[in-house]
């Protein structure tokens, strides 16, 4: 499969690299404590966004139903991310 279509792949690559470089400059200017705090802030924010998305997706105003849907999504994500990486038994000795 080819990369995302773009009329000028070289310009797209340059843009991607510049965006990454810009993010690196931002993060390099932060202290270790600020970076650690951002992990928690981003995580809290992401769950808020996921809840809103889940509630919209299943058409509910009930937060508990929204969280159930988020839980289902996370379960599927875990299975995808962990696929082939974890086992419940050690390999048998040769």
């Amino acid at each position: 499969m080819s990369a995302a279509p773009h009329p000028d792949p070289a310009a797209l690559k340059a843009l991607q690299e510049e965006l990454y470089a810009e993010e690196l400059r931002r993060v390099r200017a932060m202290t270790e404590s600020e970076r650690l705090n951002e992990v928690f802030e981003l995580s809290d924010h992401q769950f808020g966004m996921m809840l809103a998305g889940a509630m919209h997706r299943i058409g509910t105003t009930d937060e508990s139903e929204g969280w159930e849907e988020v839980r289902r999504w996370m379960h599927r994500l875990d299975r995808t991310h962990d696929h082939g990486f974890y086992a419940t038994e050690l390999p048998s000795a040769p």
Partner: protein
Amino acid sequence: MKLEELACLVIETADKVGVDFMAVGAIAAGAYGIPRSTRDVDLLVSVAVPGNIERLIGSLSPEVEFDPQIVFDTATWGRRHVGKCQGVPPLKVELFETFDDPFVNSEFARRREVFIPMLQRSTWLPTAEDVVVQKLRWGRSKDLDDARDVLAVQGPETLDMDYIRGWCREHGTMERLQNALDQIPPLD
């Protein structure tokens, strides 16, 4: 419960139970690289004292309920315990046991204590070099991104690259290391 509240609970409980540990996963990667969101609090826990991990798991109940099924990662065959946080959002705690592995022993011996303002407490983290080596060893897509980001944010010139290269040679991950270094753009 928010992620920071869960992290506080897990760290405080580990301290109370007297378990030696260090935070790994997104928390460790975020300290040195580009912060990213996570739903896990991951700890590498020393099993030098028998019964340590069981005491920690027992003390985290009922807030965190652990699956009785232990799983092994297929990169190193280390043991992992997965606990689900009760309530919302659906957060998790993953406890990885130390095991008889030269790198795991080295990274654990080199861990450093760090104060996290948001948690208003100290915790233990691996060094930046050890995060890079560990992430390259595991080699999943997000691990490779984390390794590249730590190298890029810290700058190879500030890291002990001989240490990193030594372990990468040992683990057969030199190509992954080179790929990560090649992706760092010029920043001046």
